């Protein structure tokens, strides 16, 4: 990889940057520079993304025809399980925080690094060790419990490799905890002079909220998987009804983390959108404090709604009522964000660059995903569509339409800063368009399929569902193509792209005030901040009005 990053022969002297600070393998694997660690994460999560995508491809191929003719039912169970595990725990959760957050939080607050650079490197190694355990499980025959590991199937009945997969997720959880801890301490203690809490970019606010969830939620999934492991190894009957255990308790513990985990995936993407929209609308964020507080509100409310995954699991009906009501509350801060982004664009001078296309795609798709979430928070409707493709479509609108659109938007927005190179704008816009079309073609038919009653997690289905399934599979192929394109042209740009200036978008954040790519310690001198965030108004007006 380092060979790819060697600058081509040019007349100008090579710029000093974190990329030129060392070229050997050791200079990468033992680095404590948050920017290099971010790139280590970038390479690893890209690998897991395409691995998870491969499983998705096989799932969609099987569902092309009503008969279960491509893979055995057992294999199909393993495919959707491995797709979920890899995508959730090894791609979505680390994606934006560990790559973009790692790279840009210190730069945005004017710090030289995260508070704990060694811990940051350790978190990457922990992530990789967890990933290896899970890969081992994949290679040796996979897991078939679903990514949810519901007991007692996972603890007693399943004969697949539950234990190594659970250990892998347990270990990777600690990388998430370390990242969250590092971010919280960094944001509290490492801000440059003048960088007050309400001058922080909203990307930092949303990562602060995300870190709270990582720190408070991840230990619970860790102990839950530990209990599953103890039950499998020592027959301690925590969840097995035959031993006096309660399977519903497992679901409570599992969703106590796994529902907030949805916000670990989507809050950082909201942070990215909050950066992109003002930059390309040339306006200050409408209602900055509301957007900032909304991130924290989503993090807090996110911990109070886990029971909406259990409306049909034998949970008390009164509990169901409360979880339903609380789930509706999450819509409020989410809507605050959507309205404020829209209001930011209102009468702005919008330029349709690639990151902006992704941001607007995010706003639209997240809105659809969020509103269908309200259908599911409604008890009666949920009983009807529970465990159907409606659910699948809903959470893919949030996780793929939301989180991955945000991730790709962020990668395109900050690529000139990360690599110091410009990508081809035409090609990038084309890819954004392909991703948008492919995504909707894949997942919109699934809303209809689910409403008509097609259950999730079966490898065959009645023939009348075939047309919609063919549309979905066709969409998935387009989407897959759309995801390969950025991989190709971004790599291409590293060698052949034009050099980026330090601030190609004319953005206001501190990260744009240093060279592209940045030097190892980010800034030649520690910046002093004496301006408000997203100050896109003309300097004269600021001077006159304040």
């Amino acid at each position, binding site marked *: 990889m380092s060979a790819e990053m060697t600058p081509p022969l040019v007349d100008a002297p090579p710029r000093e940057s974190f990329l030129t600070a060392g070229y050997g393998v050791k200079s990468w694997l033992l680095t404590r520079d948050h920017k290099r660690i971010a790139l280590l994460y970038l390479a690893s999560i890209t690998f897991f993304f395409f691995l998870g995508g491969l499983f998705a491809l096989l799932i969609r191929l099987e569902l092309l025809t009503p008969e279960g003719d491509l893979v055995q039912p057992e294999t199909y169970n393993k495919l959707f399980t491995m797709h979920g595990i890899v995508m959730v725990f090894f791609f979505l959760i680390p994606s934006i925080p560990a790559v973009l957050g790692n790279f840009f939080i210190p730069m945005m607050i004017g710090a030289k690094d995260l508070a704990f650079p060694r811990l940051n490197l350790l978190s990457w190694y922990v992530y990789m060790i967890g990933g290896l355990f899970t890969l081992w499980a994949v290679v040796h025959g996979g897991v078939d419990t679903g990514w949810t590991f519901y007991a007692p199937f996972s603890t007693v009945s399943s004969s697949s490799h539950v234990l190594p997969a659970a250990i892998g997720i347990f270990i990777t959880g600690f990388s998430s905890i370390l990242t969250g801890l590092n971010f*919280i301490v960094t944001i*509290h203690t490492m801000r440059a002079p003048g960088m007050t809490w309400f001058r922080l970019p909203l990307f930092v606010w949303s990562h602060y909220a995300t870190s709270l969830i990582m720190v408070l939620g991840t230990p619970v999934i860790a102990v839950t998987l*530990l209990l599953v492991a103890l039950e499998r190894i020592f027959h301690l009957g925590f969840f097995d009804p035959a031993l*006096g255990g309660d399977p519903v308790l497992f679901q409570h513990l599992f969703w106590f983390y796994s529902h907030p985990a949805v916000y670990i995936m989507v809050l950082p993407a909201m942070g990215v959108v909050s950066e992109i929209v003002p930059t390309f609308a040339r306006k200050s964020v409408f209602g900055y404090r509301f957007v900032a507080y909304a991130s924290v509100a989503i993090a807090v409310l996110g911990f109070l709604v886990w029971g909406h995954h259990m409306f049909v699991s034998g949970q008390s009906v009164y509990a169901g009522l409360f979880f339903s009501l609380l789930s509706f509350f999450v819509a409020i801060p989410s809507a605050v964000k959507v309205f404020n982004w829209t209001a930011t664009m209102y009468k702005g001078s919008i330029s349709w660059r690639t990151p902006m296309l992704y941001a607007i795609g995010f706003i639209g798709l997240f809105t659809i995903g969020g509103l269908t979430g309200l259908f599911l928070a409604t008890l009666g409707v949920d009983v009807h569509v529970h465990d159907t493709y409606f659910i699948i479509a809903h959470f893919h609108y949030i996780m793929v339409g939301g989180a991955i659109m945000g991730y790709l938007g962020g990668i395109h927005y900050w690529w000139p800063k990360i690599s110091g190179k410009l990508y081809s704008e035409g090609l990038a816009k084309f890819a954004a368009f392909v991703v948008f079309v492919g995504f909707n073609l894949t997942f919109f038919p699934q809303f209809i399929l689910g409403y008509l009653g097609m259950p999730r997690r079966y490898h065959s289905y009645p023939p009348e569902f075939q047309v919609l399934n063919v549309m979905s599979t066709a969409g998935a192929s387009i989407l897959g193509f759309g995801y390969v394109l950025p991989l190709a042209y971004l790599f291409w740009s590293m060698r052949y792209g034009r050099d980026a200036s330090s601030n190609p978008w004319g953005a206001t954040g501190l990260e744009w005030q240093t060279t592209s790519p940045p030097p190892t310690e980010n800034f030649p001198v520690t910046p002093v901040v004496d301006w408000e965030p997203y100050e896109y108004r003309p300097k004269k007006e600021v001077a006159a009005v304040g």
Partner: protein
Amino acid sequence: MAEPRPLSREEYAASRLQHHFVSMEQQRDASTLAMWVFLVTEILFFGGFFLTYTVYRWQDPVGFAHASQNMDIVLGTVNTAVLIISSLTMAMAVHSAATGRRKPLLAYLSATILLGFAFLGIKAVEYTDHIHHHLFPGPGFRFPGPDKPAAEMFFSLYFGMTGLHALHMIIGIGIVGTLLVMAYRGRFTPEYHSPIEVSGLYWHFVDIVWIFLFPLLYLIGRHLK
């Protein structure tokens, strides 16, 4: 690296400042906050066990009470005392480091380690005793009377919770052992002793977990015969 003269205390403290921090104060604030945040994650981690305990105790309080009568109250009480004293010696170690007294520091750190080992030793005696009486859950579990399922759940939780606590003790002893070596080499000064301070926080936290485990596992329902 050949130094012309040994560093003064202030120069040594300054040499402990990592490149990305502005001041020692900022560095110390960061490490203290980090330990508190870490302890919050630990509370949530143990919280899963405490929740599980609460749910099953609620389901069969009498069965749990009968099962807990197999606990050795004397050993449990002695162990509680051992841990509380170890917290005292740890606190004295932090104080000695803050006031720059090396010999008491070494003595208190050593005492903390010894008390930690004493706790684990007594715990091992208790474990051996339980296993000897067929109280380890699984196919070999024996418990007279109708309370067998509840008792098996109780002992699942007992071994799970105290096992996790013991693991934290072992890690704690490793940390204090490292501090002891560093202190022996004179690495700590009143200006730079935050490793001892934050490790002390961790040690106290592990003690507090035991302060909750002891009544939950040994004391509640002892009067029910």
